[in-house]
């Protein structure tokens, strides 16, 4: 029917199967209006093509506007969207000839982390990624992407295999966190994560990491030490979930929104803090609406990073990997030593739009820290 035909950036397409999040209420309203117009057109035979097209255009504008400035809490919603592409979706789209390798050779095979050989662009790689599972059955099988020690040990075993045969490692991060359970503690979840941090810092092959959805604390970092760390635009990476943070600091989980703001967990904030290297752009409307486009952007980012790293000697890579970690936490001041707050200065620049005068801020910071210097120790 010509009266129901609208352009390809159609609300139908955008609403298809993914529904609307709470903050997307304006989109839901426009979508409803369009549906209603169509019904009316069908029933009355009137030609409402122009009206529908106008609404569709408005839909497009609104979605672009919404997604251009998602709040941290909205970002969390998008990153956790049940239809957001998962590691298997990216395997299907951009990794060819995936050859899954199971098991940690110690205890079992944790489905919360997938590992295996794969081809990406022109590269042979070792792929390591969390899997949250798509349907309920799969989600239960892989504990909703919350890995046990076996998962981290499997990841490390396969990374060592990659090291031996000179394959770079690609880690895709998407987890709420490591699994909090009795078995996980009994089998040393803390130790498993710690050993991964230790070994990944000196693994003699390039490592590229990307947060594709949720980057939940130690469970994310356990496969997150690398030479390049990227994040999808609407993913988040945090030391603790906003709900957990709110429960502890505000004494109520209902302050999760405030906690999300305070934690600086968006890709934009973390890039400004120099804690990540790249932001992978997402189409307006999010990766869950445009998985193909998101996959293409991920592929481009990973391939760029791999190409750059392959040009470097492994000694250079290892030195830079260490230096990267070594200086990343330069967020402290000292009366006697060099003050390294360049990165924190950067985030303030972003926040306040106008760049603060460095010397002035530094001077005031020092001044305020001086009285405390006269402590007993």
């Amino acid at each position, binding site marked *: 029917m010509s009266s129901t035909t609208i352009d390809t950036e159609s609300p139908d397409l955008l609403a298809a199967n993914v529904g609307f999040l709470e903050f997307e209420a304006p989109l839901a309203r426009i979508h409803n209006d369009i549906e209603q117009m169509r019904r009316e057109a069908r029933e009355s035979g009137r030609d409402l093509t122009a009206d529908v097209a106008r609404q569709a255009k408005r839909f497009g504008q609104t979605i672009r506007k919404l997604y251009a400035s998602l709040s941290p809490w909205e970002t969390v919603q998008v990153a956790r969207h049940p239809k957001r592409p998962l590691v298997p979706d990216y395997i299907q789209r951009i990794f060819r000839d995936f050859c899954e390798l199971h098991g940690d050779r110690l205890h079992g095979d944790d489905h919360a982390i997938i590992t295996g050989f794969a081809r990406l662009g022109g590269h042979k790689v070792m792929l390591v990624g969390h899997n949250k599972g798509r349907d309920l059955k799969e989600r239960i099988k892989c504990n909703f992407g919350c890995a046990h020690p076996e998962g981290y040990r499997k990841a490390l075993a396969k990374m060592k295999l990659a090291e031996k045969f000179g394959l770079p490692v690609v880690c895709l991060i998407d987890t709420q966190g490591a699994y909090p359970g009795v078995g996980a503690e009994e089998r040393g979840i803390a130790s498993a994560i*710690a050993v991964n941090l230790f070994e990944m810092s000196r693994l003699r092959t390039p490592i590229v990491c990307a947060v594709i959805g949720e980057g939940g604390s130690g469970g994310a970092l356990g496969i997150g030490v690398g030479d390049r760390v990227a994040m999808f635009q609407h993913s988040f990476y945090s030391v603790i979930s906003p709900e957990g943070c709110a429960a502890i600091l505000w004494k109520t989980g209902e302050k999760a929104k405030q906690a999300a703001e305070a934690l600086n967990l968006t890709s934009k904030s973390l890039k400004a803090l120099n804690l990540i290297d790249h932001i992978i752009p997402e189409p307006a409307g999010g990766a869950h609406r445009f998985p193909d486009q998101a996959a293409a952007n991920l592929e481009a980012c990973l391939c760029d990073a791999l190409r750059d790293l392959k040009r470097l000697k492994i000694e250079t890579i290892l030195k830079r990997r260490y230096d990267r970690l070594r200086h990343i936490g330069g967020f402290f001041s000292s009366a006697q030593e060099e003050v390294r707050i360049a990165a924190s200065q950067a985030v303030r620049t972003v926040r306040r739009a106008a760049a603060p005068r460095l010397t002035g801020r530094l001077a005031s910071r020092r001044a305020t820290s001086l009285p*405390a210097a006269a402590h007993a120790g």
Partner: protein
Amino acid sequence: MAGEPTEKAEMSSVSERRAGVPAGLWTRCQKCGQMVYEKEVAEALNVCPSCGFHRRVDARTRIRQLVDPESFEEFAADLQTVDPLEFKDRIPYKERIREEQEKTGEKDAVIVGRAFIRGRAVVLAVMNPGFIMASMGAVVGEKITRAIEKGADENLPVILVTASGGARMQEGMVSLVQMAKTSAALARLHDAGGLCIVVATDPTTAGVAASFASLGDVIVAEPGAMIGFAGPRVIANTIKAELPEGFQTAEFMLEHGFVDRIVARGELRKELARLIDYCGK
């Protein structure tokens, strides 16, 4: 064996009063409920003379208990947080830090320095459970890392006395990355052939348990110390059941193969010296 300090004489300088509790006072042991004489507890290195319960001790007290008298030389003492996120919950983080600094007289939650333990030179890092639960932000991560690097540079054993609630939320991802930073420093120490001994004390949990506290060449733990990754309440909520008796204690970790030895506080100096001698070059 637990709770029977054997180095009392050597440790006479330890009979310092515990912060806030005047010496000479009788208190009730929080574990066994016995009335105990504070002075006696202090002389027993803050271990209950009745049941051997190991109380938490602040970092300065711990250092006095552990090192040869007057041998501690602190470094990186003046580092403090710049509040990278300008974090504010119910109160601003800056204010919280100021309160903790006033309360403890320390800049942040770890003290690092060179020292001698029974005549053996070491680099020592001691976490302070009294300072925001010794959570790890940029300052703790940096000081631990500097201690490890100093150990590697000067070929000295590194002793990490851990106690922590985990990463410091108020510094967000800056805190999380400290886990990787400290672990990477330990990997370098390891490659240089250096020795790291972890002394896990109550509580060693979350982000600290999942980084340097689990990476010692030798890991010893104090009796009864809580050691684990996820919070017990979180786990109980997940599994919807009560946790087993003794879950996430030093003894539990030993049983499951993640702690090498449990060492009573009174034996620590002797044990550390012994381990250093076995591993020293």
